[in-house]
């Protein structure tokens, strides 16, 4: 756990340095003379992140105290879900552009149900049908808007 804390702290510090040295100067103009610079608050926030990142890493490396929250590593299942669930949503968005909201919505709901371990065929049919009906009612009838 100490290694996780150290790596997290150092990663934060490195992130802050990259922001301070490259990103903020490139992405935020200096502003106009006589006004406070638009960079002021972002720089203050990033400086805080740098200092705190070093504090976290330093406390884990040299201090006796480890924060009471001891983070566990990602399990294999969590890592797969971290990739699979966003990928499913992105796939549904892609299908939305190709085939419209019905296949996209059905893919999203059925895919998520399968991912969660649902194997009952009736549920696999009813879940997308019910969700799409709810979505249609909400978007097209009540809100008077569209998707896709």
């Amino acid at each position, binding site marked *: 756990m100490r290694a996780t804390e150290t790596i997290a702290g150092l990663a934060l510090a490195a992130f802050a340095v990259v922001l301070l040295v490259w990103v903020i100067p490139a*992405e935020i103009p200096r502003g106009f003379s006589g*006004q406070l610079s638009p960079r002021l608050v972002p720089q203050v926030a990033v400086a805080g992140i740098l200092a705190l990142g070093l504090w976290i890493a330093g406390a884990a490396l040299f201090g006796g105290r480890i924060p009471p*929250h001891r983070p566990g590593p990602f399990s294999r299942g969590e890592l797969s879900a971290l990739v699979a669930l966003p990928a499913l949503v992105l796939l549904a968005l892609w299908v939305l552009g190709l085939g419209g909201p019905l296949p996209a919505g059905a893919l999203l709901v059925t895919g998520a149900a399968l991912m969660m371990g649902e194997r009952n065929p009736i549920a696999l049919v009813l879940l997308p049908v019910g969700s799409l009906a709810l979505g249609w009612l909400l978007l097209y009838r009540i809100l008077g808007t569209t998707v896709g």
Partner: protein
Amino acid sequence: MTPILAGFADILNPVTLLWVAAGVAIGYLVGALPGLGKATAVAIAIPLTFALPALPAIAFLIGIAKGSAAGSAVSAILLNVPGEPSSAPTALDGYPLARQGKAGKALKAALYASVLGDLGSTLALVVLAQPIASYALSITPVEICAVLLFSLTFVAGLSAQSLAKGLVAACLGLLAATVGLEIESGLPRLTFGDYRLFDGIPLIPMAIGMLAVGEMILQAGNRAALDQQGASIAKGAHPDDSRMTRDDWRRSAPAIARGTAIGIGVGILPGLGASVGSFLSYGAARARAKEPERFGTGAIEGVAASESADNAVVPASLIPLFALGIPGSVIAAILIGAFMLHGVAPGPLMFAQQPRLVGGIYAAMIAASLALLLIGMTLQGLFAQVVRVPTRRVVPVVLFLCVIGAWLEGGGVFGVQVMLVFAVLGVVFIKLGFSVVNFLIGFVVGRTFELTFRQSIQILGRDPWNLIHHPIALIFLALTAIAVWRFTRGARSTARKSEET
């Protein structure tokens, strides 16, 4: 009091009461849907009131606002998906309670706190509207900046077990809030050339991603363990798990009273919004708790604190609207349109020219608070059935609703993309022990904080000694220093105890 009594007489007819009840019921149901907040609900309902007289129309719209503010707790508790960002702190303890089989208790605590907060704030509106609103005119950006700084110290307080990580999360939230066009110069910041970021990162897709989709990713990753838990969480074994016990009331009553006061204070100050109120109230409840470590694991007073403040903000934000014509929140701004549509011009003249209508509106608001209690109790039984449905069937539907919510509030595909980015970030935050809530507080407060900070520097002429002319700001700065000292001391003693064990 005569106009108010006359207003009560106007309200006490079946048709107007029906409109009040219909507004509360619709608002409660819409509020329970993730991503559809009270502002959206009221905006959608305005056209429905075209054919109505002024009083039933305004009563209907205010009923929707009140109902949806309370309804947003339902999805926060049952699904860990806040109906709107101001209910995010409710999810912190409400969802763990639901997972422990105490969904009924959490829903009741949220409803009672909502009704009490709402009613208390409505009474404050009735009694204090004119004097408080006149005083609110003397609040300058210097005072608001000091109040926000004070609220940001509660960010540190919320994470007293790991102060550094809490502050990192808050700083990241502040940084995220600076994305978009800078308000003073109009120059783009951290947009990487993408025009969709010019208005900043949309809050609702961000909150849905970090709180709801992040949780669903973790649930999908641990579904084997979840299936095993399923039977035990479906329903609590003890009848006390579904009701508020005397001990629950003892814990919740101070949190509700404090939350109501905080909500009223935040509602009166223009621009702060319900999210600041609920987060502040949650932070205050935790800071004053004898066992702060219970927070986040199912503390009933956490739910009560958050919901009382969230609901107290709605009526309080009408105080500057009614007395000065200044909207204190988005909902008040939308209501101005509805008022004008029905021939009512909010402001000081409203009291002189249409006192009976003002009395009627006050009466309708009190009636809406009572309707909220009855309708909430009726619909809660229905909503509580959700926890009995297996997680593998709830997650797909909730994910679908999350995508719809992010789509609507984030302007289409962009909103969904934002939701996904912050879902991944949320999972990383949770696994590494960084607080998602602190990040959201930093983000919510960030824009107003930066604006008032800049204005304060100009008002003070870049000379801190000029603060002496702003005693309210000085009081809040002193409170900030005290809060930092107390939270730092709290964090040290927690770490020491942890070492000893």
